[in-house]
């Protein structure tokens, strides 16, 4: 029992399970001979379970498989509060969400400790916690931090007031800055057909990176999306760095640097802490809410919990805004309106729906196909107003029926057009409707 009468439970001591101060693990062989070692971290799994990283087949490992019981002493890195857990081996996981969570955390610890070549996760050993006891220590007062529950509530209140998907994305990032003190963050949506995530909103970077992409499984964002589980890292590790991953995959594919059709990923050059929260709807990852900091160990278990509330609310609001848009009756007004400025040349590559405006790359994929379709109709008939619904039903756009996020594509397209100052704009003009505004006549070339 804690001194104040609350039962001592694993969720109360999670700060000891961040891998900031090493833990002490004691095991015994079948004859009762003890073995003791320092271990890099103990992972919180749920209120009844922890996991240890299986990195080497050593004496500890042999003992655990033989006698299953262990004792682990853990330390709170902020207060020096110390606890001893009696644990019992349950199973080893060599893939899946827990394994990926621990792999990312271990990579950060190894990078920080200069042990990249030594630490390698072979498996996650899961243990049931049989008991927790306090080990007396000199406890230092904890510094006052952010009230995370209040921050989550205030952010959720704020984002609930938005009526437009782009505004919703921006409000989430503004709320994280204002209430959590998170200065660098972005929202990426999941393209389930291409297996990629694309940036729809960012905050705190010199360039927005709207439209930049990350592949599934790449970095903390790609792993979080792939596994549907939050991924955190307290010290940056090269194998989770995007620049390196993008270059490596380009080289592995025999390509030169992708050049002018790649929108640069906006992330920090030298991040230390990163957290990627999957945005989940009906069990599927539809996007990732991502935050990072140049300071180490900024995102702990509590930050993860608080941001998961925000990500959950974000998912629900995305669904609500989409439903609202879909209930708007379709109207297809035709307003003859030719821009009077300079001619705008657009080139479309059908292979991947890449669109250039002038000599500059603008967009590709579904967003490129949407732009090409509406630009074509505009050039042919002068039509300027379009509905989300007709895009959704257009077989030429090949939008998958399931969960594919048309509205997010429109936000992406709208923002890319605005950033590139292409002389083309998309303005919302009612629920589920938007207007194409061009500064000059369009000259279209299909390649």
């Amino acid at each position, binding site marked *: 029992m804690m001194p104040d009468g609350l039962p001592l439970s694993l969720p109360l001591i999670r700060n000891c399970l961040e891998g900031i101060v090493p833990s002490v693990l004691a095991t*015994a062989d079948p004859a009762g001979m*003890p073995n003791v070692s320092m271990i890099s971290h103990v992972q919180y799994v749920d209120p009844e379970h922890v996991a240890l990283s299986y990195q080497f087949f050593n004496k500890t490992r042999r003992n655990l498989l033989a006698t299953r*019981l262990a004792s682990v002493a853990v330390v709170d890195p902020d207060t020096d509060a110390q606890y001893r857990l009696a644990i019992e081996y349950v199973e080893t996981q060599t893939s899946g969400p827990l394994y990926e969570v621990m792999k990312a955390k271990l990579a950060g610890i190894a990078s920080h400790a200069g042990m990249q070549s030594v630490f390698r996760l072979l498996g996650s050993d899961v243990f049931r916690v049989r008991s927790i006891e306090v080990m*007396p220590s*000199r406890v230092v007062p904890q510094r006052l931090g952010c009230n995370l529950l209040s921050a989550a509530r205030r952010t959720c209140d704020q984002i609930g007031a938005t009526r437009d998907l782009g505004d919703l994305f921006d409000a989430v990032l503004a709320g994280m800055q204002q209430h959590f003190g998170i200065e660098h963050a972005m929202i990426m949506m999941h393209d389930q057909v291409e297996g990629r995530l694309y940036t729809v909103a960012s905050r705190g970077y010199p360039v927005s990176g709207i439209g930049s992409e990350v592949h599934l499984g790449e970095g903390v964002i790609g792993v979080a999306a792939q596994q549907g589980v939050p991924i955190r890292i307290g010290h940056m590790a090269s194998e989770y760095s995007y620049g390196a991953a993008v270059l490596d995959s380009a080289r592995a594919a025999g390509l030169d640097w992708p050049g002018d059709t790649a929108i640069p990923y906006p992330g920090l050059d030298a991040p230390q802490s990163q957290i990627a929260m999957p945005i989940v709807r009906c069990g599927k990852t539809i996007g990732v809410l991502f935050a990072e900091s140049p300071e180490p160990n900024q995102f702990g278990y509590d930050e993860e919990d608080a941001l998961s509330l925000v990500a959950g609310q974000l998912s629900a609001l995305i669904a609500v805004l989409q439903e609202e848009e879909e209930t708007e009756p379709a109207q297809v007004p035709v307003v003859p309106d030719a821009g009077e400025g300079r001619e705008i040349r657009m080139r479309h590559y059908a292979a991947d729906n890449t669109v250039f405006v002038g000599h500059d790359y603008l967009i590709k994929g579904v967003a490129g196909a949407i732009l090409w379709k509406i630009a074509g109709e505009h050039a042919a008939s002068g039509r300027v107003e379009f509905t989300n619904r007709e895009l959704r039903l257009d077989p030429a756009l090949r939008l998958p029926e399931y969960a594919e996020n048309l509205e997010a594509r429109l936000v992406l397209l709208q923002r890319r057009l605005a950033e590139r100052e292409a002389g083309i704009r998309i303005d919302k003009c009612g629920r589920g409707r938007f207007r194409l505004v061009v500064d000059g006549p369009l000259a279209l070339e299909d390649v």
Partner: protein
Amino acid sequence: MPRAPEPLTPEFDIAARQAAQDDGVLTPDLEDHIQSGISVVIGVAGPGMAPVATVGCGCRVLPNGRLRILLMRAGNETLLDMVARGAGIAATFSRPINHRSIQVKGMLADIAEPTPDDRALAARQHDGLRRDLIGINYPPAFAAAYCAVNEADLVAVDMTPDAAFVQTPGPNAGAELKR
């Protein structure tokens, strides 16, 4: 786990042990290491007794070759009871600035009353650990709390070393150190 500015590998101690002309479990160099004011972590177990982990505060090599390991009594009552009932003890001695880690095990262990010298030695050795922790960027307030020694509460476990192992991270970690 902070970065060690001068990391060692297990090979350092394996080679040094093989080169030493010494039949004991611990060479003078290893005795110096374990008494040098570094991290001491302890595991106790015995036949029919589940293992228990704790942290120690220091170590002295006794004139008879046994090791006196110093730890706090508070919070270690179960562990001390196990030693009294015949449990064995393992202690790993690690230097944070180079990760050099040596584990010593013994099945013969007894509880002893620390002398005033032992109490002062524990405070001195733990102060050495405190300085090392600050040296690898632990916050000074944390390092001071972690290395605080309540001299009045110290207890000693004397053990006969049966075997020593290198635990420095790297290839061959866990190898027994013997001639």
